[in-house]
């Protein structure tokens, strides 16, 4: 048990200053406290999520009926580009890493702050600069309107349109730069600033996940930086690398783009896996099953994620021998993912599962992510990918992995850690209700898309043949359910973090370091750095049922 001396003088320091006490916008923007920067990332991300979600609802409303419902082709193309760009670059890439990673990773390893606090603040400022550039691209007073090329900016279409492709790509470049700096900061922190006694096998699995995500962030993101610069150079200098008229090959842009964009998919999912590996043991009052296997598969996924990118190019004139190689490598990455899912499910075996909202979202993560993973199998086979590529099957697959994975896990993290950050409990019944809205809405939106995809309904289509009309109708109804679910879930958390009932420092009776200090957390986390003596998942040890088991029905 970490010998932390806070409990002794807890009563004396009740009114003690915590990291939220200093008020004033400037105190937030100039603060170098990792907890404040993490919260800033969280709130910016959630706003971006609602904006991106709004675009998604507009898309789905347009697709409700065949033919023009209320917007024309060009606006529809702009909407799906902005939905993609805002969701991926602004919200999900920094989603869990920069928000909860920033807040809790230093505390979980027993440090007072990250290795380079000023660099941490600078990376948030670069992130906000990136958002401003994207917003400028959104309005685009220079003429041509916002970009309509899809979030992948494939050349030569992104060359030909005079829309604001350059501003959007430069915004994405800035946000990529900010994610490099965050990744670099976290790798150094985890290596160098662990508390005495915190060996690698005593680190919580969330920290393992953040570590492997930061590795990918540091090593993959420079590639998109240069690719976007080559794209901008290509647009200005008019001759060059992706230009087919001069022997250049536009498919090379896809190679360079996906060399970053597939590892970024693992940047999104690994922290989500980390959060779930934290929540499942706490609520089933049982140690995580196969700690070493989950830790090692996080690293394995980080490693393998770099060699599978060309499965996005099976159908775009990739040579058939390359397709065979990359199909084999893609199946390699499925193995560590499967191991994780099996370990999570075995963690539930023999536990006493508390179906609180964070646990519901964590279980929904395992359920939906398993579907996402399994529908990846046909896509990785070249023969089947030939008919499934760029259809709604792919849209449904990546929504199951990104949304069913990262966003559901972010909701789980919100409900699990917000009581720690604000010291106030959320409304349980309201939380469960919005969960069911999200879960049912999600499946209702994307199961019909699987069925459309297998019949060949292409992706990014503004208008479609009437045989798909029913699927689109059901999918739109599901999308509205999903929208209300997310909105109410976030509302519940925001209101309760100001008005909820105070819930003390460890409402879930969890065993990782952040639950050992007061909530909201004091300015410098620990009065003095604790020495760690044991594994953080010691729930339900023999004969000590009450010691670690939750207090009766942990309220």
């Amino acid at each position, binding site marked *: 048990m970490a010998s932390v001396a806070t409990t002794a003088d807890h009563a004396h320091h009740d009114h003690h200053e915590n990291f939220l006490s200093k008020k004033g916008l400037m105190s937030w923007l100039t603060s*170098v406290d990792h907890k404040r920067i993490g919260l800033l990332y969280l709130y910016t991300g959630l706003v971006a999520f609602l904006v991106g979600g709004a675009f998604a609802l507009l898309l789905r409303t347009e697709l409700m009926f065949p033919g023009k419902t209320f917007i024309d082709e060009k606006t529809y193309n702009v909407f799906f580009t902005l939905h993609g760009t805002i969701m991926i670059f602004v919200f999900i890439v920094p989603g869990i890493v920069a928000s909860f990673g920033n807040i809790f990773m230093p505390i979980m390893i027993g440090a*007072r*702050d990250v*290795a*380079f*606090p*000023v*660099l941490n603040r600078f990376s948030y400022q670069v992130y906000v600069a990136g958002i401003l550039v994207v917003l400028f691209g959104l309005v685009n007073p220079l003429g041509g309107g916002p970009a309509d090329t899809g979030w992948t900016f494939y050349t030569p279409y992104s060359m030909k349109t005079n829309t604001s492709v350059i501003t959007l790509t430069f915004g994405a470049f800035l946000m990529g730069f900010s994610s*490099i700096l965050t990744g*670099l*900061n976290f*790798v*150094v922190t985890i*290596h*160098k*600033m662990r508390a005495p006694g915190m060996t690698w096998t005593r680190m919580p699995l969330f920290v393992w996940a953040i570590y492997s995500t930061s590795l990918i962030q*540091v*090593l993959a*993101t*420079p*590639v998109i*930086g*240069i*690719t976007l*610069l*080559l794209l901008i*150079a290509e*647009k*200005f*200098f*008019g*001759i*060059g*690398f992706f230009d087919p*008229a*001069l*022997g*250049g*090959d536009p498919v*090379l842009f896809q190679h*360079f783009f996906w*060399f970053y964009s597939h590892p970024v998919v693992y940047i999104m999912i690994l922290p989500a896996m980390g959060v779930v590996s934290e929540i499942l043991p706490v609520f089933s009052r049982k140690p995580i099953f196969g700690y070493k296997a989950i830790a090692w598969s996080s690293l394995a996924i980080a490693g393998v994620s770099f060699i599978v990118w060309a499965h996005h190019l099976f159908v775009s004139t990739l040579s058939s021998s390359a397709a065979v190689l990359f199909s084999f490598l893609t199946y390699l990455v499925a193995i560590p993912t499967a191991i994780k899912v099996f370990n999570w499910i075995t963690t539930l075996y023999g536990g006493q599962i508390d179906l609180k909202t964070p646990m519901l979202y964590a279980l929904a993560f395992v359920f939906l992510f398993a579907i996402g993973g399994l529908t990846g199998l046909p896509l990785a086979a070249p023969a089947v990918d030939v008919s499934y590529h760029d259809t709604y099957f792919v849209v449904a697959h990546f929504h199951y992995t990104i949304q069913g994975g990262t966003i559901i896990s972010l909701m789980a993290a919100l409900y699990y850690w917000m009581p720690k950050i604000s010291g106030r409990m959320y409304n349980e019944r309201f939380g469960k209700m919005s969960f069911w809205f999200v879960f049912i809405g999600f499946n209702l939106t994307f199961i019909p898309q699987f069925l459309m995809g297998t019949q060949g309904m292409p992706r990014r289509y503004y208008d479609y043949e009437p045989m798909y009309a029913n699927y689109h109708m059901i999918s739109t109804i599901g999308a509205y359910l999903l929208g209300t679910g997310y909105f109410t879930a976030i509302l519940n958390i925001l209101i309760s973090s100001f008005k909820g009932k105070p819930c003390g420092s460890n409402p879930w009776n969890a065993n990782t370091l952040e639950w050992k200090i007061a909530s909201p957390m004091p300015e410098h986390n620990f009065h003095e750095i604790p020495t760690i003596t044991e594994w953080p998942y010691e729930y339900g040890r023999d004969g000590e049922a009450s010691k670690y088991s939750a207090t009766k029905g942990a309220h």
Partner: protein
Amino acid sequence: MSANQAGYTTYQGHTVRDGSLWGNPAPLVYSMSRFGMWLFLATEILLFAILFTAYSIAYYRDAAAFHASAKELSVAFGTANTVILLFSSFTVAWGIEAVKHGNNRLMLVMLGITIACGVVFLINKKFEYGHKMHEVELAKEAIAPELYQVLKAENKCADTFDKHHGEDIMVEKCKVVPFNVSNIGSTDKSKPAFASMFFFLYFVMTGIHGLHIIIGLGLLIWVMRKGLKNEFHPGWYTPVEVGGLYWHLVDLIWIYLFPLLYLVA
């Protein structure tokens, strides 16, 4: 204790940093700074790696054009620049050795030489770029097809004799401007900004490398200013080390750029 909770001590009468920061002890901060810098260098290496991939793919697709265009670059300039950068790398390493043993003045001299070499390198580059912006003789393969038709129409091309491994062979050469600033942003294929793919890659790679040289010089000037205020002592010289590491990386990348761009002919 200032905002970043840096620790101070005295050395030869000056109050200097003792290396501790944010409550972390000096050796930990020192090793974290080096580790952080090396990770950043890893991202820079990967950044240039994609440019090398772009170069090697374009080279694979059309080796003849690359051979013909590379003849245009003067190997003398390239070798001179390489020697300058290697020398500047040596002097910056010597400067770090000096500051480790407390010889602040020698460190300042060495950094001065390094910055001078960097500036000379940039001046050389400016001449090379300037040379490319005027009309030059280029072999037919070294020119983009549409541009070649336009040049042929304006009969700027003529058959001349050319030395190729000793014996004379007939080569058609045209007068063309490799980097035509006026055509920047043109969508018309017959009026491109660069004469061919090789020049596009040459300018993009050496341009980004030049940008990194400027950032490196900025870093070294910042270190010189602190050095002049005698802030460094054997107990704390991290900025010098970090500035030096960045400069070595910039030299490292030039070591690869030189053979690929200049010696391909």
